[in-house]
């Protein structure tokens, strides 16, 4: 017991507040370390993933690769290296906050809540949320979901959406928790759930590679309004934000941004023309959060 007490005391004595404060502006750190660090998702197509040949790619990652090159030029240090660090939903914000990564390039929603602790560049994409079902299930409309089981990414905004849908329409839906988009689709694919609620762009890469690529459809009479996603950077470093935003604006102006969009989304399984909201964004770039 004495050992236990000593260990407990040692654990509790770890000084509070050592980890978070990082006063060095991002640019100083980039030059000092000689590298720009891009945080990416290892397996979240189409926004960020590791391709079969081992290269890191994805819609958001490709934007960031372009930005990194432009930032190097803007800083007058073309010799800087670009380094990739995998992140996940749980650690992305702390890693941005403590300066481990300089640009977080994924499908991260630009929310007012998050803007309290990090900053975002100009919005780079709009994603809606829909409910996927198996075609042979006979489920077509929201009302058909009565008493059904719906796969939900645990802890994500969709969890609240499905609660609200169920309550508002008296559907008595049982949520089945999953940990990411691939898992959400797998629950639907294996029959553990009758439907899956998620961002369609993140479900389609999985359904299109499943055993029955044409066996899935979205519920026709429901979708959540498109919400903006963006590239996350540390809060309070205005110079870095301006430099990166200038590079992003340049990309939007010279057509490279739309080129990148077309390369990722004008192809199967998405075939998604650029949303009006994103077109407006290119004309008038801003970093307004969802609902703002």
């Amino acid at each position, binding site marked *: 017991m004495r050992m236990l007490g000593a260990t*407990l005391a040692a*654990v509790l004595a770890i000084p*509070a*507040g050592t980890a978070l404060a990082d006063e060095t502006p991002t640019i100083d750190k980039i030059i000092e370390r000689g590298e720009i660090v891009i945080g990416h998702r290892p397996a979240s197509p189409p926004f960020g993933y590791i391709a079969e040949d081992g290269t890191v790619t994805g819609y958001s990652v490709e934007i960031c690769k372009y930005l990194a090159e432009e930032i190097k030029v803007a800083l007058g240090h073309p010799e800087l290296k670009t380094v990739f660090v995998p992140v996940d*939903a*749980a650690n992305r914000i702390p890693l941005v906050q403590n300066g481990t990564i300089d640009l977080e390039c994924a499908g991260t929603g630009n929310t007012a*809540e998050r803007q309290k602790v990090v900053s975002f560049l100009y919005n780079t994409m709009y994603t809606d949320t829909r409910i996927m079902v198996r075609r042979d299930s006979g489920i077509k409309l929201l009302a058909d979901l009565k008493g059904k089981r719906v796969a939900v990414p*645990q802890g994500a905004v969709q969890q609240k959406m499905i609660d609200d849908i169920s309550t508002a329409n008296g559907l008595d839906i049982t949520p089945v*928790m999953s940990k990411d988009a691939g*898992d959400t689709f797998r629950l639907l694919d294996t029959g553990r759930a009758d439907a899956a609620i998620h961002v369609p762009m993140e479900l389609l890469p999985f359904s299109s590679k499943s055993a029955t690529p044409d066996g899935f459809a979205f519920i026709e009479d429901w979708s959540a309004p498109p919400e903006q996603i963006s590239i996350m950077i540390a809060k309070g470093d205005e110079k870095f934000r301006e430099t990166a935003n200038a590079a992003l604006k340049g990309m939007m102006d010279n057509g490279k941004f739309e080129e990148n969009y077309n390369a990722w989304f004008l192809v199967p399984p998405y075939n998604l023309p650029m949303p009006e909201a994103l077109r407006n964004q290119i004309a008038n770039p801003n970093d307004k959060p969802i609902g703002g």
Partner: protein
Amino acid sequence: MLDFSFLLEPATLGVGQSNLDLMLAGWVNTLRAFAGAMFLALAIGVPLGVIRSLPGGGWASRLVAAYVEIFRNIPLLIQLFLWFFVVPELVPERLGWWLKRELPQPEYWNLVFALGIFMSARVVELTRAGIGSLGKGQSEAATALGLGTADTYRFVLLPQALRIVMPPLTTEFANCLKASSIGLTVGYIEITQRAREISEQTFRTFEIFAVATLGYFLTIAVIVLLLQVLEHALRIPGTRMGVSQ
């Protein structure tokens, strides 16, 4: 700066619950998974450990050895994934449907089953080691007293062996509690998953994982303490670790 006040604030995804309430619910789920899995591990592991130690070996002993190798050598995460996503597709369709849709709390029972089987392989080896450590004299003396194999195990070998393995078994109890966190990969919402969820909602990552860490630490400390008390209470007078010197 670390700030724990968010714990008492209403949770974004909870209905009238605070973040601390969600953590406590996760902690209860961790304990439920631990209790179920450890019960299964002991219920399967001790009898199989006895079979493994039977004199002369034989096919039953070799079968148990294979069981131990299979469940000890495959990573727990992969075992859980196989039980949850693969096995229901391999068994007859009706049974697969039952596993996926009709079994209540499928995440819980899948986790208990996978974790219990994994831990049972370790309990088999502990039991065998405990019996093996007793020395030939014990079973020879039992035979000389006219005890058959079953009675030798029941009255002589097991009572001593199980006392001997109490300390390493305590470690396995702690391992089991910690390993229950893999339940989050099949949607079982235990304390680690709750911490991830709250971290996503509040961005208080360091604080919430400090709470989760402390939760694990204190829970295991209490379990270890209880087992030490039990070990002490069961000690045979005049012996050390339950064995006559």
